[in-house]
């Protein structure tokens, strides 16, 4: 029983991080119609920021705070230099950002080497719930993820900035004709989405062996989660993230990670095939 609860908690942990990563991706996609193939590498950079601060003796917390700032800034720079020129060219942004991801990943390899690196979890204690013991750090991550997700949803649905974003998502030219500066929205969105990925990477760093391929390892499930949940909706990724993350966690624990990947991927493809607009999508997007 205790084992089951631990598995469930781990699964929840994974789902929340996946949602964090996917949220940035889906907001960027919804607003700018851009798929940033380097989004996984932004996650990677967040994780390696923590590795760096750890190696420099600055500790985890500095890394955690620096990661979203650094990655967000990088996102802003990328948007300004590259993405801005490719707004109308959908497939080209995918390819160009894939090129960016190659560059980022290779830079990490050059600086840190190709092998996996470990960092110490900052809260090594275990918290006891009766007979159950669970790492405090994991609980911390879940709290952080939940808060960030909640804040994002609040901003998106309850503030003027969110209203303007949703207007641009719904009808960008008309939003522009209403006086909304779409370019500025794109910049803000891209920066924010990238920062989310960086934060997610930073929180995961102490839990995994950080290697240069981990970015892709989160990008693909995040993308599948978006497709499964519904590419046009923010709430869709809650559903998609739960389905994809939950099943991957569960099958991974019961069988093996490779089996999990195969099964989850097949399920995702079948769902997308059967219901192209995703589980929660309404208008047949995609």
């Amino acid at each position, binding site marked *: 029983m205790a084992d089951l609860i631990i598995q469930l908690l781990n699964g929840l942990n994974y789902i929340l991080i996946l949602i964090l990563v996917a949220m940035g991706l889906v907001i960027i996609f919804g607003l700018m119609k851009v798929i940033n193939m380097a989004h996984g590498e932004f996650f990677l950079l967040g994780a390696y920021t923590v590795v760096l601060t750890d190696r420099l003796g600055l500790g985890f917390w500095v890394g955690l705070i620096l990661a979203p700032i650094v990655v967000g800034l990088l996102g802003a720079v990328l948007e300004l230099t590259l993405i801005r020129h490719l707004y109308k060219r959908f497939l080209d942004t995918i390819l160009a950002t894939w090129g960016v991801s190659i560059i980022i990943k290779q830079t990490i390899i050059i600086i840190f080497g190709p092998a996996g690196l470990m960092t110490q979890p900052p809260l090594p204690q275990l918290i006891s719930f009766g007979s159950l013991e669970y790492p405090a750090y994991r609980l911390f991550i879940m709290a952080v993820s939940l808060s960030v997700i909640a804040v994002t949803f609040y901003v998106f649905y309850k503030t*003027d900035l969110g*209203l*303007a974003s*949703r*207007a641009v998502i*719904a*009808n960008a*030219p*008309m*939003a*522009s*004709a*209403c*006086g*909304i*500066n*779409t*370019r500025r929205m794109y910049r803000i969105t891209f920066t924010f989405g990238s920062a989310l990925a960086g934060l997610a990477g930073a929180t995961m760093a102490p839990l995994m062996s950080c290697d240069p391929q981990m970015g892709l390892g989160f990008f693909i499930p995040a993308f599948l989660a978006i497709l499964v949940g519904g590419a046009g909706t923010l709430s869709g990724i809650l559903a998609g993230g739960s389905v994809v993350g939950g099943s991957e966690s569960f099958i991974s624990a019961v069988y093996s990670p490779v089996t999990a990947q195969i099964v989850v991927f097949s399920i995702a493809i079948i769902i997308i095939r059967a219901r192209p607009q995703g589980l929660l999508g309404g208008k047949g997007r995609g």
Partner: protein
Amino acid sequence: MLIVNDLHASYGGSLALQGVDFSLKPGAIKALMGRNGMGKTTLMRAIMGLVKIKSGTIRFQGKEIQSLRSHDIALRGIGYVPQGREIFGDFTVLENLRLPLMRRPRNQRNAPKEIFEYFPILAERMNQRAGTLSGGQQQMLAIARALAPNPSLLLLDEPSEGLQPSIVQEIVDILLAINRDTGLTILIVEQNISMVMDLAQTCEFMERGRIVGACPIEDIRADESIIAKHMSV
């Protein structure tokens, strides 16, 4: 107020505007008529910065705007009501009206009460999702949304499309009232002749991307066949 000079623009691969010369005086209400595909909508979209302009100039209140982006043009004081209304169906009426006011400080983002005086129907449905409004109500919302930031020029593209004559009359009355009270300049693209006769002061005709004729509304009231002449196949 608005001077368009030798404007050329493409749309969808074809040269939709081939040298448009056009002007509007402040406070005037002008109708733009012509058969489908003659460039009327493209002209409106060009003024609003939604279509790429190949050559020519557009002057609004003395300043050139043809190279400005749409949101800057909106801020300069041009409101746009596109064909098909394009309201934000998922937003409430209030949110639709709040959108054009985003550039203002936070406490000034509520729609001015004058809007609700002119459009009482909207006052009754402030928190209703715009997608659930009737066609006529949606059209009023689209116009109110364009008027919320108090523009000097209003562009209307086929507002009567799909509406009952009684609603059209209501809209005409409201627009005339606003024009009287505030001196709002109005440019309207319309195929609905009776609406044009009730609302407009002058009328211009467009054919194949150019203005080919103009006349005051009295001439049309006297002889409707003028329109037929300009709109014939």
